[in-house]
């Protein structure tokens, strides 16, 4: 190569060189990266919105938000790897007459200190951001309310039963009053089950001889499903119950229809004791 050609080549490949940005490898990869990142971000918004069930508690909302946030953060990283991989197949792929003859050797580049350091730094920063997010969300969920509704959840092969201490009610449907903090005290009588009311955004195993605790505050009315998330034997798939987030008044009524006294029901529901004279009361 003559001196002029060498200069041209250097200029073409350096940032300050003369060739337009988007006709250099870096530029083209940038475009591909941009396209992939946008697709990734769109997936981050589309998937939760269209695929996740409607969440019925702040913890459920946290799950939604986390998925969006993590996808948006991960998209540029994945996009970069994909962009370079795709570009390599188009720009640097060697096509020859004889498939058995290898292409000529490429420019050896055994490493690049600055690139490696930047990569490490960026990935560390991303991890720290993810971690802070996770810790922040998790800590916020650990707040316990002193007058939370207590629900004792019992897992057994192959049914969930729920009892509401103080009311004498034990049922197989999990009805909860809206906007009232609830604390689930979960245990099992035989093997390990997984108490999983998915749209409430909380989950904990039901272990024999141990009580595990999770807390949430349902904030959206509607029916939901409780599944068992830990394989527990023959009818694990049938260990589904329903639940329902209802108004306090409906909850009071429901408790009474299951045998609670009006006073106990009112306390549990958080309704005033004078408002419990309903036609359904026993």
């Amino acid at each position, binding site marked *: 190569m003559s001196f002029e050609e060498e200069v041209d080549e250097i200029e073409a490949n350096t940032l300050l060189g003369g060739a337009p940005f988007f006709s250099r490898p870096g530029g083209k990869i940038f475009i591909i990266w941009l396209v992939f990142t946008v697709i990734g971000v769109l997936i981050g918004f589309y998937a939760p919105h269209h695929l996740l069930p409607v969440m019925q508690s702040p913890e459920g909302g946290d799950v939604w938000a986390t998925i969006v946030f993590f996808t948006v953060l991960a998209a540029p990283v994945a996009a970069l790897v994909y962009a370079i991989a795709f570009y390599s197949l188009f720009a640097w792929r060697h096509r020859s007459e004889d498939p058995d003859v290898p292409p000529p050797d490429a420019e050896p580049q055994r490493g690049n200190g600055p690139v490696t350091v930047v990569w490490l730094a960026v990935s560390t920063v991303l991890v720290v951001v993810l971690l802070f997010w996770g810790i922040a969300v998790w800590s916020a969920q650990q707040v316990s309310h002193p007058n939370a509704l207590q629900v004792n959840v*019992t897992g057994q092969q192959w049914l969930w039963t729920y009892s509401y201490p103080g009311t004498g009610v034990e049922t197989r449907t999990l009805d909860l009053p809206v906007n009232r903090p609830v604390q689930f005290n979960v245990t099992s009588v035989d093997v390990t089950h997984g108490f999983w009311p998915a749209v409430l955004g909380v989950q904990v195993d039901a272990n024999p001889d141990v009580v595990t605790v999770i807390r949430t505050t349902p904030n959206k009315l509607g029916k939901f499903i409780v599944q068992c998330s830990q394989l527990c034997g023959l009818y694990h798939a049938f260990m589904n119950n329903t639940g329902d987030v209802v108004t306090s008044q409906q909850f009071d009524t429901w408790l009474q229809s299951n045998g609670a006294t009006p006073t106990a029901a009112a306390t549990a529901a958080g309704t005033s004791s004078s408002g419990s004279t309903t036609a359904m009361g026993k």
Partner: protein
Amino acid sequence: MGILLTFVVALVAIGGVAAFFISQSYTSPNYPNGVQVAQPLGTAVVNGQSVPHVALQFQTYPDSTGSVAGKQVHPSGNPAWPAYGLSNQYQVPAHSLVTVTIRQYDSGGSLNNPWFAKVSGTVGGVATFTSPDGKTVTTNHVDPDNIGHTFTMRSAPGVDSAFFLNVPLPTNANLPNNQTNPDAGQYYTVKFSFLSGAKGVYAWNCEFPCGQMVASFGGVMGAYGFMSGFVHVV
């Protein structure tokens, strides 16, 4: 040649393994006597509506191989294992009144969770229990420490989540646990009616821990077909 032969043998073995338990799945004690279809009894009026009325009758076998009938239930069964029979598959029409009569021949004890001693999901929330000495009582719960088995039924996910049935089948200290000829032995009779739900597959199982190992829910309780089965609501 040796490698290829081994390889072909291995492939045949894989195919054989797959074929084996597909066949197992159809000949294991799941369908020993086919599906027991509920007998039609005409119609009945429930909650002001006229619905088809059918009847089902079955019993518990303390020794699933012992009696002539028992051998029909589980030819490959274990003498120490109880079973329901003659079949563990039942068929009832959807949205119908199903009257069930169960003869309970087995001994028992305490439930893991006394909640299952309560009747739930039947018409009126009650069942009629007749003890071996002829005393009859219609109630919504029995003594949780004298339970032989239960008949507990729920739908497959998404079929009818509102449906649930649980009827305890009592026992007493006099019922031996190895009645090999139940047709001549003592038994409790439990009679109840329920409204069947939407069409689909429902699973029934016994919630009394009459099995082995942890929580007495292993062994027979985990072996499909003895204390578990399906109700096909058609």
